[in-house]
Protein backbone atom coordinates (compact mmCIF):
# COMPACT_ATOMS: atom_id res chain seq x y z
CA UNK A 1 0.00 0.00 0.00
CA UNK A 2 2.90 2.33 0.76
CA UNK A 3 4.23 2.04 -2.78
CA UNK A 4 0.88 2.86 -4.33
CA UNK A 5 0.79 6.18 -2.55
CA UNK A 6 3.02 7.44 -5.36
CA UNK A 7 -0.13 7.74 -7.47
CA UNK A 8 -1.77 10.96 -6.42
CA UNK A 9 -5.50 11.44 -6.28
CA UNK A 10 -5.19 13.84 -9.22
CA UNK A 11 -3.41 11.15 -11.26
CA UNK A 12 -6.03 8.64 -10.32
CA UNK A 13 -8.94 10.79 -11.47
CA UNK A 14 -7.05 11.73 -14.65
CA UNK A 15 -6.56 8.02 -15.41
CA UNK A 16 -10.22 7.28 -14.76
CA UNK A 17 -11.18 10.19 -17.01
CA UNK A 18 -8.88 8.98 -19.78
CA UNK A 19 -10.26 5.47 -19.56
CA UNK A 20 -13.84 6.71 -19.62
CA UNK A 21 -13.11 8.99 -22.59
CA UNK A 22 -11.49 6.12 -24.50
CA UNK A 23 -14.47 3.88 -23.83
CA UNK A 24 -16.94 6.62 -24.76
CA UNK A 25 -15.13 7.47 -28.01
CA UNK A 26 -14.91 3.82 -28.96
CA UNK A 27 -18.54 3.32 -28.05
CA UNK A 28 -19.66 6.27 -30.19
CA UNK A 29 -17.77 5.06 -33.27
CA UNK A 30 -19.03 1.55 -32.68
CA UNK A 31 -22.67 2.59 -32.32
CA UNK A 32 -22.32 4.73 -35.47
CA UNK A 33 -21.22 1.62 -37.39
CA UNK A 34 -24.20 -0.31 -36.02
CA UNK A 35 -26.61 2.46 -36.97
CA UNK A 36 -25.20 2.68 -40.49
CA UNK A 37 -25.79 -1.01 -41.00
CA UNK A 38 -29.25 -1.02 -39.48
CA UNK A 39 -30.31 1.70 -41.92
CA UNK A 40 -29.64 -0.63 -44.85
CA UNK A 41 -32.41 -2.96 -43.76
CA UNK A 42 -35.46 -1.86 -45.79
CA UNK A 43 -33.98 -3.32 -48.95
CA UNK A 44 -33.51 -6.85 -47.65
CA UNK A 45 -36.05 -9.48 -48.69
CA UNK A 46 -36.06 -11.90 -45.77
CA UNK A 47 -36.87 -15.61 -45.53
CA UNK A 48 -40.49 -16.57 -44.78
CA UNK A 49 -41.63 -16.01 -41.21
CA UNK A 50 -39.06 -13.28 -40.53
CA UNK A 51 -40.02 -11.04 -37.64
CA UNK A 52 -40.50 -7.30 -38.21
CA UNK A 53 -37.20 -5.88 -39.39
CA UNK A 54 -35.96 -4.38 -36.08
CA UNK A 55 -36.87 -7.53 -34.15
CA UNK A 56 -35.36 -9.71 -36.85
CA UNK A 57 -32.08 -7.80 -36.77
CA UNK A 58 -31.92 -8.12 -33.00
CA UNK A 59 -32.80 -11.83 -32.85
CA UNK A 60 -30.91 -13.30 -35.81
CA UNK A 61 -27.67 -14.95 -34.67
CA UNK A 62 -26.39 -15.11 -38.28
CA UNK A 63 -25.78 -18.86 -38.21
CA UNK A 64 -27.02 -19.71 -41.70
CA UNK A 65 -29.04 -22.78 -40.75
CA UNK A 66 -31.94 -21.45 -42.86
CA UNK A 67 -29.49 -21.23 -45.77
CA UNK A 68 -28.47 -24.85 -45.17
CA UNK A 69 -32.12 -25.92 -45.14
CA UNK A 70 -33.20 -24.13 -48.34
CA UNK A 71 -33.40 -26.75 -51.13
CA UNK A 72 -33.29 -24.15 -53.91
CA UNK A 73 -30.18 -22.23 -52.77
CA UNK A 74 -32.43 -19.19 -52.59
CA UNK A 75 -31.15 -17.85 -49.30
CA UNK A 76 -27.78 -16.22 -48.78
CA UNK A 77 -26.06 -14.69 -45.78
CA UNK A 78 -25.18 -11.05 -46.32
CA UNK A 79 -21.46 -10.58 -46.78
CA UNK A 80 -19.72 -7.43 -45.61
CA UNK A 81 -20.38 -5.72 -48.96
CA UNK A 82 -23.99 -6.77 -49.57
CA UNK A 83 -25.48 -3.49 -48.31
CA UNK A 84 -27.64 -5.54 -45.96
CA UNK A 85 -26.98 -6.02 -42.23
CA UNK A 86 -23.98 -8.26 -42.11
CA UNK A 87 -24.50 -11.98 -41.79
CA UNK A 88 -28.30 -11.92 -41.99
CA UNK A 89 -30.18 -14.12 -44.47
CA UNK A 90 -31.86 -12.59 -47.52
CA UNK A 91 -32.59 -13.42 -51.11
CA UNK A 92 -32.59 -11.67 -54.45
CA UNK A 93 -35.84 -12.68 -56.20
CA UNK A 94 -34.59 -11.87 -59.70
CA UNK A 95 -31.77 -14.39 -59.19
CA UNK A 96 -33.48 -17.17 -57.23
CA UNK A 97 -36.95 -16.52 -55.79
CA UNK A 98 -38.55 -18.38 -52.90
CA UNK A 99 -40.39 -21.40 -54.29
CA UNK A 100 -42.66 -21.55 -51.28
CA UNK A 101 -42.02 -25.12 -50.06
CA UNK A 102 -45.11 -26.42 -48.30
CA UNK A 103 -43.08 -27.70 -45.33
CA UNK A 104 -41.14 -24.39 -45.07
CA UNK A 105 -37.83 -26.11 -44.15
CA UNK A 106 -35.98 -22.85 -43.47
CA UNK A 107 -38.20 -21.81 -40.55
CA UNK A 108 -38.07 -24.67 -37.99
CA UNK A 109 -34.24 -24.81 -38.12
CA UNK A 110 -33.94 -21.20 -36.95
CA UNK A 111 -32.54 -21.56 -33.42
CA UNK A 112 -33.48 -18.10 -32.17
CA UNK A 113 -36.98 -17.64 -33.55
CA UNK A 114 -35.93 -14.72 -35.77
CA UNK A 115 -37.92 -16.77 -38.26
CA UNK A 116 -41.21 -17.23 -36.47
CA UNK A 117 -41.93 -20.93 -35.89
CA UNK A 118 -45.63 -20.10 -35.72
CA UNK A 119 -45.66 -19.85 -39.52
CA UNK A 120 -47.24 -23.09 -40.67
CA UNK A 121 -48.85 -22.18 -43.97
CA UNK A 122 -46.45 -20.70 -46.49
CA UNK A 123 -49.33 -18.67 -47.96
CA UNK A 124 -49.28 -16.66 -44.74
CA UNK A 125 -45.66 -15.62 -45.29
CA UNK A 126 -45.05 -11.93 -46.01
CA UNK A 127 -41.51 -11.75 -47.32
CA UNK A 128 -42.29 -8.66 -49.34
CA UNK A 129 -44.87 -7.21 -51.67
CA UNK A 130 -44.83 -7.30 -55.48
CA UNK A 131 -45.07 -3.88 -57.10
CA UNK A 132 -45.73 -3.29 -60.81
CA UNK A 133 -44.03 -0.57 -62.81
CA UNK A 134 -46.97 0.05 -65.15
CA UNK A 135 -44.84 2.18 -67.46
CA UNK A 136 -42.72 -0.83 -68.36
CA UNK A 137 -45.11 -3.73 -67.81
CA UNK A 138 -45.87 -5.38 -71.20
CA UNK A 139 -49.46 -6.09 -70.25
CA UNK A 140 -49.99 -2.49 -69.27
CA UNK A 141 -48.80 -1.53 -72.79
CA UNK A 142 -51.58 -3.67 -74.23
CA UNK A 143 -49.46 -6.70 -75.09
CA UNK A 144 -50.62 -10.12 -74.02
CA UNK A 145 -48.06 -11.16 -71.41
CA UNK A 146 -49.56 -11.98 -68.01
CA UNK A 147 -46.63 -14.30 -67.28
CA UNK A 148 -46.53 -13.10 -63.67
CA UNK A 149 -50.21 -13.89 -63.27
CA UNK A 150 -49.78 -17.41 -64.61
CA UNK A 151 -46.62 -18.20 -62.65
CA UNK A 152 -47.85 -16.76 -59.35
CA UNK A 153 -48.09 -19.59 -56.80
CA UNK A 154 -50.97 -17.88 -55.01
CA UNK A 155 -52.99 -18.28 -58.16
CA UNK A 156 -55.54 -15.60 -58.99
CA UNK A 157 -55.41 -14.15 -55.49
CA UNK A 158 -52.04 -12.41 -55.17
CA UNK A 159 -52.11 -11.31 -58.80
CA UNK A 160 -55.34 -10.93 -60.75
CA UNK A 161 -55.85 -9.78 -64.32
CA UNK A 162 -58.41 -7.16 -65.15
CA UNK A 163 -59.41 -6.12 -68.61
CA UNK A 164 -59.29 -2.45 -69.32
CA UNK A 165 -60.52 -0.69 -72.48
CA UNK A 166 -57.66 0.40 -74.67
CA UNK A 167 -57.54 3.82 -76.21
CA UNK A 168 -55.81 3.01 -79.50
CA UNK A 169 -57.77 -0.07 -80.54
CA UNK A 170 -60.77 -2.15 -79.72
CA UNK A 171 -58.60 -4.85 -78.14
CA UNK A 172 -58.87 -4.78 -74.39
CA UNK A 173 -55.80 -4.65 -72.17
CA UNK A 174 -55.38 -7.48 -69.71
CA UNK A 175 -53.48 -5.88 -66.86
CA UNK A 176 -52.07 -7.59 -63.79
CA UNK A 177 -52.86 -6.17 -60.36
CA UNK A 178 -51.21 -7.23 -57.08
CA UNK A 179 -53.21 -7.73 -53.91
CA UNK A 180 -51.34 -7.25 -50.68
CA UNK A 181 -53.73 -9.45 -48.70
CA UNK A 182 -52.52 -12.51 -50.63
CA UNK A 183 -49.04 -11.67 -51.99
CA UNK A 184 -46.34 -13.55 -50.03
CA UNK A 185 -43.45 -11.71 -51.65
CA UNK A 186 -41.92 -14.93 -52.95
CA UNK A 187 -40.61 -13.09 -56.00
CA UNK A 188 -41.42 -15.71 -58.63
CA UNK A 189 -43.16 -12.95 -60.64
CA UNK A 190 -40.00 -10.86 -60.53
CA UNK A 191 -37.95 -13.87 -61.63
CA UNK A 192 -40.16 -14.67 -64.63
CA UNK A 193 -40.90 -11.11 -65.80
CA UNK A 194 -39.64 -10.99 -69.43
CA UNK A 195 -38.68 -7.31 -69.56
CA UNK A 196 -35.00 -6.45 -69.52
CA UNK A 197 -35.27 -5.19 -65.97
CA UNK A 198 -38.16 -6.69 -64.09
CA UNK A 199 -41.30 -4.54 -64.34
CA UNK A 200 -42.72 -6.33 -61.31
CA UNK A 201 -40.54 -6.33 -58.24
CA UNK A 202 -40.71 -7.45 -54.66
CA UNK A 203 -39.99 -4.84 -52.03
CA UNK A 204 -40.49 -4.68 -48.32
CA UNK A 205 -44.11 -3.56 -47.85
CA UNK A 206 -43.08 -0.63 -45.66
CA UNK A 207 -41.29 0.92 -48.61
CA UNK A 208 -44.31 0.96 -50.90
CA UNK A 209 -47.51 0.65 -48.93
CA UNK A 210 -49.49 3.73 -47.96
CA UNK A 211 -52.05 4.00 -45.24
CA UNK A 212 -55.48 5.52 -45.71
CA UNK A 213 -55.78 6.70 -42.13
CA UNK A 214 -58.78 6.89 -39.83
CA UNK A 215 -59.87 10.29 -41.13
CA UNK A 216 -61.09 8.79 -44.42
CA UNK A 217 -64.21 6.66 -44.31
CA UNK A 218 -65.16 4.60 -47.29
CA UNK A 219 -68.93 4.96 -47.31
CA UNK A 220 -69.71 1.66 -48.94
CA UNK A 221 -67.92 -0.23 -46.21
CA UNK A 222 -70.01 1.29 -43.44
CA UNK A 223 -73.49 0.10 -42.66
CA UNK A 224 -75.62 3.13 -41.92
CA UNK A 225 -78.83 4.64 -43.36
CA UNK A 226 -76.88 7.51 -44.93
CA UNK A 227 -74.41 5.28 -46.74
CA UNK A 228 -76.95 2.91 -48.25
CA UNK A 229 -76.82 4.78 -51.55
CA UNK A 230 -73.14 4.03 -51.96
CA UNK A 231 -73.56 0.27 -51.82
CA UNK A 232 -72.52 -1.57 -54.94
CA UNK A 233 -75.45 -2.70 -57.06
CA UNK A 234 -76.32 -6.32 -56.59
CA UNK A 235 -77.92 -8.63 -59.09
CA UNK A 236 -76.83 -10.75 -62.01
CA UNK A 237 -73.80 -9.11 -63.56
CA UNK A 238 -74.29 -11.17 -66.71
CA UNK A 239 -77.60 -9.51 -67.43
CA UNK A 240 -76.01 -6.35 -68.70
CA UNK A 241 -73.13 -8.04 -70.53
CA UNK A 242 -72.13 -6.36 -73.79
CA UNK A 243 -72.27 -8.07 -77.14
CA UNK A 244 -69.93 -11.00 -77.68
CA UNK A 245 -66.37 -10.17 -78.51
CA UNK A 246 -66.46 -11.41 -82.05
CA UNK A 247 -69.41 -9.25 -83.04
CA UNK A 248 -67.91 -6.25 -81.37
CA UNK A 249 -64.61 -6.62 -83.18
CA UNK A 250 -66.25 -7.04 -86.56
CA UNK A 251 -68.31 -3.89 -86.35
CA UNK A 252 -67.03 -0.60 -87.68
CA UNK A 253 -63.44 0.46 -88.37
CA UNK A 254 -60.51 -0.85 -86.34
Amino acid at each position, binding site marked *: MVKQAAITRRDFFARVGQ*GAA*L*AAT*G*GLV*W*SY*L*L*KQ*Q*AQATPYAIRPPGALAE*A*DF*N*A*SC*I*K*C*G*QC*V*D*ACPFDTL*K*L*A*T*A*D*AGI*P*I*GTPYFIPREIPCYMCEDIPCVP*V*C*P*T*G*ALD*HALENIDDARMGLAVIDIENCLSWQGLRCEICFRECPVQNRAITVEHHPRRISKHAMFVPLVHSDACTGCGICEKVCPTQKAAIRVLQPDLVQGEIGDHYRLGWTIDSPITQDFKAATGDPGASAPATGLDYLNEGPL
Partner: protein
Amino acid sequence: MSSGNPVTTGPNGRPVKPFIMPASFSGKLQVWHLLLLRRAVQIGVLLLFIGTVRWGWEVAGRPVLTGNLSSSELFGLIPMADPFATLQILLTGHLPLQEVLLGAAIILGAYALLGGRVWCSWVCPVNMVTDLSAWLRRHLGISDLFRLSRSIRYTVLALALILSVLTGVAAFEWISPISMLHRELIYGIGLGWTAVLGVLLFDLFILRNGWCGHLCPLGAFYALVGKLALIRVRFDTPTCTHCGECAKICPEPQVLNLKEAAAAGMIASGECTNCGRCITVCPEGTLQFDLRRFPVARQKPDTTKSRQRSAL
Protein backbone atom coordinates in the same frame (compact mmCIF):
# COMPACT_ATOMS: atom_id res chain seq x y z
CA MET B 1 21.28 -13.88 -20.06
CA SER B 2 22.09 -16.83 -22.23
CA SER B 3 24.04 -15.24 -25.08
CA GLY B 4 27.75 -15.96 -25.30
CA ASN B 5 28.41 -16.28 -21.60
CA PRO B 6 29.41 -19.55 -20.01
CA VAL B 7 26.55 -21.63 -18.75
CA THR B 8 24.44 -19.89 -16.12
CA THR B 9 22.34 -21.75 -13.67
CA GLY B 10 18.71 -21.40 -12.69
CA PRO B 11 17.38 -21.05 -9.13
CA ASN B 12 17.26 -24.84 -8.94
CA GLY B 13 20.98 -25.06 -9.60
CA ARG B 14 20.58 -26.63 -13.03
CA PRO B 15 22.26 -25.02 -16.04
CA VAL B 16 20.00 -22.84 -18.18
CA LYS B 17 19.52 -24.48 -21.54
CA PRO B 18 18.09 -22.37 -24.32
CA PHE B 19 15.44 -23.89 -26.53
CA ILE B 20 16.98 -25.09 -29.78
CA MET B 21 14.78 -26.19 -32.63
CA PRO B 22 15.79 -29.80 -33.40
CA ALA B 23 17.38 -30.31 -36.79
CA SER B 24 15.66 -33.60 -37.48
CA PHE B 25 12.17 -33.68 -38.93
CA SER B 26 10.91 -36.00 -36.20
CA GLY B 27 12.34 -33.63 -33.60
CA LYS B 28 10.56 -30.72 -35.28
CA LEU B 29 7.36 -32.73 -35.33
CA GLN B 30 7.75 -33.25 -31.61
CA VAL B 31 7.93 -29.48 -31.15
CA TRP B 32 5.11 -28.82 -33.56
CA HIS B 33 2.75 -31.60 -32.58
CA LEU B 34 0.39 -29.42 -30.54
CA LEU B 35 0.46 -26.68 -33.16
CA LEU B 36 -0.38 -29.21 -35.88
CA LEU B 37 -3.12 -30.68 -33.73
CA ARG B 38 -4.61 -27.23 -33.18
CA ARG B 39 -4.55 -26.49 -36.91
CA ALA B 40 -6.19 -29.84 -37.57
CA VAL B 41 -8.99 -29.04 -35.11
CA GLN B 42 -9.46 -25.48 -36.40
CA ILE B 43 -9.53 -26.50 -40.05
CA GLY B 44 -11.45 -29.70 -39.31
CA VAL B 45 -14.32 -27.82 -37.64
CA LEU B 46 -14.54 -25.41 -40.58
CA LEU B 47 -14.44 -28.35 -43.00
CA LEU B 48 -17.35 -30.07 -41.25
CA PHE B 49 -19.43 -26.90 -41.70
CA ILE B 50 -18.35 -26.36 -45.31
CA GLY B 51 -18.83 -30.03 -46.20
CA THR B 52 -22.35 -30.03 -44.77
CA VAL B 53 -23.57 -26.92 -46.54
CA ARG B 54 -21.65 -27.22 -49.81
CA TRP B 55 -21.30 -30.96 -50.37
CA GLY B 56 -24.22 -32.26 -48.32
CA TRP B 57 -22.21 -34.38 -45.88
CA GLU B 58 -24.50 -36.69 -43.96
CA VAL B 59 -24.23 -39.47 -41.43
CA ALA B 60 -27.14 -41.92 -41.37
CA GLY B 61 -29.26 -39.45 -43.33
CA ARG B 62 -28.60 -36.62 -40.91
CA PRO B 63 -26.61 -33.50 -41.83
CA VAL B 64 -23.25 -33.55 -40.05
CA LEU B 65 -22.88 -29.99 -38.83
CA THR B 66 -25.21 -27.23 -40.01
CA GLY B 67 -24.84 -23.53 -39.31
CA ASN B 68 -21.58 -21.88 -38.36
CA LEU B 69 -19.64 -21.05 -35.22
CA SER B 70 -22.33 -18.57 -34.10
CA SER B 71 -24.92 -21.31 -33.83
CA SER B 72 -25.02 -24.82 -35.18
CA GLU B 73 -26.55 -28.24 -34.92
CA LEU B 74 -24.64 -31.52 -34.79
CA PHE B 75 -26.38 -34.37 -36.66
CA GLY B 76 -29.57 -32.32 -36.57
CA LEU B 77 -29.82 -33.16 -32.87
CA ILE B 78 -27.39 -31.36 -30.61
CA PRO B 79 -27.71 -27.58 -30.65
CA MET B 80 -24.65 -25.46 -30.04
CA ALA B 81 -24.46 -21.69 -29.86
CA ASP B 82 -22.00 -18.95 -29.11
CA PRO B 83 -22.91 -17.97 -25.51
CA PHE B 84 -21.53 -14.44 -25.97
CA ALA B 85 -23.68 -13.85 -29.08
CA THR B 86 -26.68 -15.29 -27.25
CA LEU B 87 -26.04 -13.00 -24.29
CA GLN B 88 -25.96 -10.00 -26.62
CA ILE B 89 -29.29 -11.04 -28.17
CA LEU B 90 -30.79 -11.38 -24.69
CA LEU B 91 -29.56 -7.88 -23.87
CA THR B 92 -31.33 -6.41 -26.90
CA GLY B 93 -34.51 -7.34 -25.04
CA HIS B 94 -35.40 -10.34 -27.19
CA LEU B 95 -35.89 -13.73 -25.60
CA PRO B 96 -34.74 -16.23 -28.23
CA LEU B 97 -36.10 -19.76 -28.50
CA GLN B 98 -35.02 -22.51 -26.12
CA GLU B 99 -32.94 -24.18 -28.80
CA VAL B 100 -30.33 -21.43 -28.90
CA LEU B 101 -30.41 -21.01 -25.12
CA LEU B 102 -29.75 -24.72 -24.71
CA GLY B 103 -27.01 -24.57 -27.34
CA ALA B 104 -25.37 -21.63 -25.59
CA ALA B 105 -25.56 -23.46 -22.25
CA ILE B 106 -23.91 -26.54 -23.78
CA ILE B 107 -21.02 -24.52 -25.21
CA LEU B 108 -20.69 -22.39 -22.08
CA GLY B 109 -20.54 -25.53 -19.94
CA ALA B 110 -18.03 -27.19 -22.23
CA TYR B 111 -15.62 -24.25 -22.20
CA ALA B 112 -16.11 -23.62 -18.49
CA LEU B 113 -14.87 -27.18 -17.95
CA LEU B 114 -12.22 -27.37 -20.66
CA GLY B 115 -10.62 -23.98 -20.16
CA GLY B 116 -12.49 -21.02 -21.59
CA ARG B 117 -9.92 -19.83 -24.06
CA VAL B 118 -9.48 -23.29 -25.52
CA TRP B 119 -11.91 -21.69 -27.94
CA CYS B 120 -9.31 -19.09 -28.90
CA SER B 121 -6.40 -21.34 -29.72
CA TRP B 122 -8.13 -24.55 -30.76
CA VAL B 123 -11.29 -23.47 -32.61
CA CYS B 124 -11.37 -19.78 -33.54
CA PRO B 125 -10.29 -19.33 -37.17
CA VAL B 126 -8.89 -15.84 -36.50
CA ASN B 127 -6.21 -17.56 -34.40
CA MET B 128 -4.65 -18.83 -37.63
CA VAL B 129 -4.46 -15.24 -38.91
CA THR B 130 -3.01 -13.74 -35.74
CA ASP B 131 -0.56 -16.64 -35.36
CA LEU B 132 0.62 -15.85 -38.87
CA SER B 133 1.11 -12.22 -37.83
CA ALA B 134 3.04 -13.28 -34.75
CA TRP B 135 5.22 -15.63 -36.80
CA LEU B 136 6.00 -12.94 -39.38
CA ARG B 137 6.67 -10.44 -36.61
CA ARG B 138 9.16 -12.78 -34.93
CA HIS B 139 11.04 -13.28 -38.18
CA LEU B 140 10.91 -9.67 -39.34
CA GLY B 141 11.70 -8.21 -35.93
CA ILE B 142 8.97 -5.56 -35.99
CA SER B 143 8.52 -3.59 -32.79
CA ASP B 144 5.26 -2.31 -31.34
CA LEU B 145 3.92 1.09 -32.39
CA PHE B 146 2.51 1.68 -28.91
CA ARG B 147 1.67 -0.19 -25.75
CA LEU B 148 -1.81 -0.99 -24.66
CA SER B 149 -3.11 -2.59 -21.51
CA ARG B 150 -4.18 -6.18 -22.07
CA SER B 151 -7.13 -5.49 -19.79
CA ILE B 152 -8.69 -3.20 -22.36
CA ARG B 153 -10.49 -6.26 -23.75
CA TYR B 154 -12.71 -6.29 -20.67
CA THR B 155 -13.72 -2.71 -21.46
CA VAL B 156 -14.53 -3.80 -25.04
CA LEU B 157 -16.53 -6.69 -23.58
CA ALA B 158 -18.47 -4.31 -21.34
CA LEU B 159 -19.04 -1.94 -24.28
CA ALA B 160 -20.37 -4.80 -26.42
CA LEU B 161 -22.94 -5.61 -23.75
CA ILE B 162 -23.90 -1.98 -23.08
CA LEU B 163 -24.22 -1.16 -26.78
CA SER B 164 -26.40 -4.23 -27.31
CA VAL B 165 -28.81 -2.76 -24.79
CA LEU B 166 -28.63 0.77 -26.24
CA THR B 167 -28.75 0.02 -29.97
CA GLY B 168 -31.05 -3.01 -29.91
CA VAL B 169 -28.71 -5.17 -32.00
CA ALA B 170 -26.05 -7.66 -30.91
CA ALA B 171 -23.25 -5.11 -30.97
CA PHE B 172 -20.18 -7.32 -31.37
CA GLU B 173 -21.84 -9.76 -33.76
CA TRP B 174 -22.44 -6.90 -36.18
CA ILE B 175 -18.77 -5.99 -36.48
CA SER B 176 -16.97 -9.17 -35.43
CA PRO B 177 -14.12 -10.14 -37.78
CA ILE B 178 -14.31 -13.63 -36.26
CA SER B 179 -17.87 -14.15 -37.43
CA MET B 180 -17.10 -12.51 -40.79
CA LEU B 181 -14.27 -14.98 -41.32
CA HIS B 182 -16.02 -18.23 -40.53
CA ARG B 183 -19.34 -17.11 -41.99
CA GLU B 184 -17.84 -16.10 -45.30
CA LEU B 185 -15.62 -19.18 -45.49
CA ILE B 186 -18.69 -21.35 -44.99
CA TYR B 187 -21.40 -19.42 -46.83
CA GLY B 188 -19.59 -17.45 -49.51
CA ILE B 189 -16.83 -14.91 -49.64
CA GLY B 190 -17.61 -11.20 -49.57
CA LEU B 191 -15.63 -8.28 -48.30
CA GLY B 192 -15.29 -9.83 -44.84
CA TRP B 193 -11.69 -10.70 -45.66
CA THR B 194 -10.85 -7.00 -45.46
CA ALA B 195 -11.69 -7.04 -41.75
CA VAL B 196 -9.52 -10.11 -41.35
CA LEU B 197 -6.72 -8.38 -43.27
CA GLY B 198 -7.14 -5.47 -40.87
CA VAL B 199 -6.59 -7.81 -37.93
CA LEU B 200 -3.52 -9.29 -39.64
CA LEU B 201 -1.96 -5.89 -40.31
CA PHE B 202 -2.83 -4.58 -36.85
CA ASP B 203 -1.13 -7.55 -35.22
CA LEU B 204 1.81 -7.47 -37.60
CA PHE B 205 2.74 -3.80 -37.71
CA ILE B 206 0.98 -2.04 -34.86
CA LEU B 207 0.72 -4.19 -31.76
CA ARG B 208 1.99 -7.68 -31.02
CA ASN B 209 -0.96 -9.98 -30.26
CA GLY B 210 -3.04 -6.84 -30.70
CA TRP B 211 -6.37 -8.43 -31.55
CA CYS B 212 -6.46 -11.71 -29.62
CA GLY B 213 -4.34 -10.48 -26.73
CA HIS B 214 -5.68 -6.96 -26.22
CA LEU B 215 -8.99 -6.17 -27.92
CA CYS B 216 -11.13 -9.22 -28.65
CA PRO B 217 -14.20 -9.20 -26.36
CA LEU B 218 -14.95 -12.84 -27.15
CA GLY B 219 -11.54 -13.82 -25.81
CA ALA B 220 -12.23 -11.68 -22.75
CA PHE B 221 -15.57 -13.43 -22.30
CA TYR B 222 -13.98 -16.87 -22.45
CA ALA B 223 -11.15 -15.74 -20.15
CA LEU B 224 -13.80 -15.04 -17.51
CA VAL B 225 -15.70 -18.25 -18.31
CA GLY B 226 -12.53 -20.34 -17.99
CA LYS B 227 -11.37 -18.95 -14.66
CA LEU B 228 -12.01 -22.25 -12.90
CA ALA B 229 -11.57 -24.57 -15.87
CA LEU B 230 -10.21 -28.06 -15.36
CA ILE B 231 -7.57 -28.26 -18.09
CA ARG B 232 -4.57 -26.17 -17.11
CA VAL B 233 -0.87 -26.07 -17.84
CA ARG B 234 0.92 -27.60 -14.88
CA PHE B 235 4.01 -25.81 -13.56
CA ASP B 236 6.62 -28.04 -11.99
CA THR B 237 8.61 -25.58 -9.87
CA PRO B 238 11.77 -27.59 -9.04
CA THR B 239 12.65 -28.19 -12.69
CA CYS B 240 12.27 -24.58 -13.89
CA THR B 241 15.56 -22.82 -14.69
CA HIS B 242 13.88 -19.48 -15.48
CA CYS B 243 15.24 -19.66 -19.02
CA GLY B 244 12.29 -17.61 -20.29
CA GLU B 245 11.69 -19.59 -23.47
CA CYS B 246 8.02 -20.04 -22.57
CA ALA B 247 7.40 -16.31 -22.17
CA LYS B 248 9.10 -15.60 -25.51
CA ILE B 249 6.70 -17.77 -27.46
CA CYS B 250 3.55 -17.24 -25.36
CA PRO B 251 0.87 -15.05 -26.97
CA GLU B 252 -0.30 -14.05 -23.48
CA PRO B 253 3.01 -13.84 -21.59
CA GLN B 254 1.44 -12.13 -18.58
CA VAL B 255 -0.09 -15.50 -17.60
CA LEU B 256 3.42 -16.94 -17.14
CA ASN B 257 4.05 -15.14 -13.91
CA LEU B 258 6.46 -17.68 -12.45
CA LYS B 259 5.90 -16.65 -8.85
CA GLU B 260 2.15 -17.18 -9.17
CA ALA B 261 2.73 -20.34 -11.18
CA ALA B 262 5.01 -21.73 -8.48
CA ALA B 263 2.45 -20.90 -5.82
CA ALA B 264 -0.47 -22.45 -7.67
CA GLY B 265 1.48 -25.29 -9.29
CA MET B 266 -0.12 -24.32 -12.58
CA ILE B 267 -0.82 -21.45 -14.93
CA ALA B 268 -3.97 -20.30 -13.21
CA SER B 269 -5.00 -17.26 -15.25
CA GLY B 270 -8.13 -17.53 -17.38
CA GLU B 271 -6.28 -15.59 -20.06
CA CYS B 272 -4.13 -18.66 -20.82
CA THR B 273 -5.49 -20.09 -24.08
CA ASN B 274 -4.11 -23.61 -23.51
CA CYS B 275 -2.35 -23.41 -26.87
CA GLY B 276 0.52 -25.48 -25.52
CA ARG B 277 3.32 -23.54 -27.18
CA CYS B 278 5.15 -23.17 -23.85
CA ILE B 279 4.92 -26.91 -23.32
CA THR B 280 6.69 -27.75 -26.54
CA VAL B 281 9.50 -25.20 -26.15
CA CYS B 282 10.25 -25.82 -22.47
CA PRO B 283 13.68 -27.51 -22.39
CA GLU B 284 13.06 -28.92 -18.92
CA GLY B 285 9.56 -30.33 -19.28
CA THR B 286 8.43 -28.00 -16.52
CA LEU B 287 5.16 -27.21 -18.26
CA GLN B 288 2.66 -29.95 -19.10
CA PHE B 289 -1.07 -30.18 -19.69
CA ASP B 290 -2.76 -31.41 -16.55
CA LEU B 291 -5.98 -31.13 -14.64
CA ARG B 292 -6.49 -28.16 -12.38
CA ARG B 293 -4.99 -28.43 -8.94
CA PHE B 294 -7.19 -26.78 -6.42
CA PRO B 295 -5.21 -24.67 -3.94
CA VAL B 296 -6.36 -26.66 -0.89
CA ALA B 297 -4.65 -29.82 -2.07
CA ARG B 298 -1.35 -28.12 -2.71
CA GLN B 299 1.47 -27.33 -0.32
CA LYS B 300 2.47 -23.72 -0.64
CA PRO B 301 5.28 -22.85 1.77
CA ASP B 302 6.28 -19.76 -0.21
CA THR B 303 2.90 -18.10 -0.19
CA THR B 304 2.18 -18.78 3.45
CA LYS B 305 5.47 -17.19 4.33
CA SER B 306 4.78 -14.12 2.22
CA ARG B 307 1.28 -13.96 3.63
CA GLN B 308 2.63 -14.00 7.15
CA ARG B 309 5.04 -11.30 6.17
CA SER B 310 2.34 -9.10 4.72
CA ALA B 311 0.19 -9.73 7.78
CA LEU B 312 2.95 -8.34 9.92
